């Protein structure tokens, strides 16, 4: 089940899930490193602009109402980012209306070649008392 199907996010804004996620923007391209699963993600232009808009502090409701695309498209992108643990919902939101913006496409490229170095499997999978490699029951 997706995150957005469990929690009502209409009043929430979104922020990068630091410190478990590292954010880097260079020449308009964004790289997000997710340290729990060990994946990293590249977001090229123009998707990078969409991502920056989604984490600019406006609530989901305001992001949907100011977007040229339909609200469902915005929800889909947000859900994907939540499911991948790249962003988290926050209750502190900007009061003013969001400026008009476009969501024609959003491409999130996922890479796993650093998993060996970055991933957190021992913590996720180990029994909290017995420790690694005893699996969590």
């Amino acid at each position, binding site marked *: 089940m997706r995150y957005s199907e469990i929690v009502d996010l209409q009043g929430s804004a979104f922020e990068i899930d630091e*410190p478990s996620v590292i954010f880097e923007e260079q020449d308009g391209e964004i790289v997000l490193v997710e340290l729990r699963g060990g994946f990293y993600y590249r977001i090229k232009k123009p998707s990078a602009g969409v991502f920056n808009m989604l984490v600019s502090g406006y609530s989901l409701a305001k992001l949907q109402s100011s977007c040229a695309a339909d609200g469902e498209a915005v929800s889909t992108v947000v859900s994907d980012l939540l499911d991948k643990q790249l962003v988290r919902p926050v209750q502190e939101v900007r009061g003013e209306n969001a400026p008009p913006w476009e969501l024609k496409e959003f491409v999130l490229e996922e890479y796993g070649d650093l998993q060996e170095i970055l991933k957190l499997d*021992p913590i996720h999978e180990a029994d909290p008392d017995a420790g*690694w490699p005893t699996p969590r029951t």
Partner: protein
Amino acid sequence: MTRTQSALIVDAGSPTPENDAGSVAVRDLEWGLAELGFQTRLAAEARPRDLQEALARNYDVVVLSRPSTYLRNHSLINREKTKVLYFAHDLHFVRLSLGQALGENSGSLGPRVMKSVEAFCFSSADLVLLPTEEEVAVVHETWPDVSARRINYFAMEPVDERPSFASSHGLVFIGSREHAPNRDGLAWFFEEVWPGVVGEAPDITLTLIGDWASDFEQVHNVRVLGNVSDSEVDVAMSAARIGIAPLRYGAGMKRKTLHYFAAGLPVVSTDFGLEGIRATHVPEPAAVIARSSDEWVARLLELHAQESRWNELSRNAKRHVSACFSNEAYLSDLSVALQDALQ
């Protein structure tokens, strides 16, 4: 009365020194801190409750081992009372870049991403510990404000006696299959070098220490020991005549080469296999460098057959370890680094 200082080391899992050199480095660090008078504790992320309890206490020094462990835990430490040291093991982004140049993960953003990750670790730690002067220089050049120091990473004492030239035979390689440069290096060695060696000297054998059974057990004249105890490693090192380090890329200090030296084993190696270990202040060579496959075949056959040369290199290898990588040298390096951090 002087207060006993305290140190916590955090790593991803409990050390498995029989499997990987990084674990040996963590174990040696734990020993070194205790020897220097620190009340020392080791906690693993794999035991979350134990880690949580450990992090709730105050320490003079917390050492976070490896980049991912650093990133997940640095913000949990009370920086007002504690100095945070990043135990880097090597420059991952350099290792990944060099691997990529040889075709590994071609086109991947891995080196760039890793550089960002490591930049964050470097810039937020009070002190970065690295195994080689070359890596410290790279860090200082790239991030001038970062405080980085080299420490020995491994403490090792040479054997008193080792079997003679006549009593030893063949080659030995020690290394984990988990480490990509080892996989690449051995694959290259078996493809490009080994056929030439056994073609000229059909009785030469190669013993592999590490989890290589699925890769090379069927290769002619090759014996795979697997992950074995320290005493079994010592037996294999004593029985062999030459240690090999056919690494085509990598970063950090190569424990395998030090291990060969400590066993009095002459070494044939690439430049990468001697990184951080090259005897710049010891006049006598302790290893033979080979770069091309032809050089490898020639140097191995020569050294395997030349008793006087072998005796000289064996002597120099032990002398080098004794001079630069002994327990005493390790503690001296670590002590200076800690004084810097705790000032």
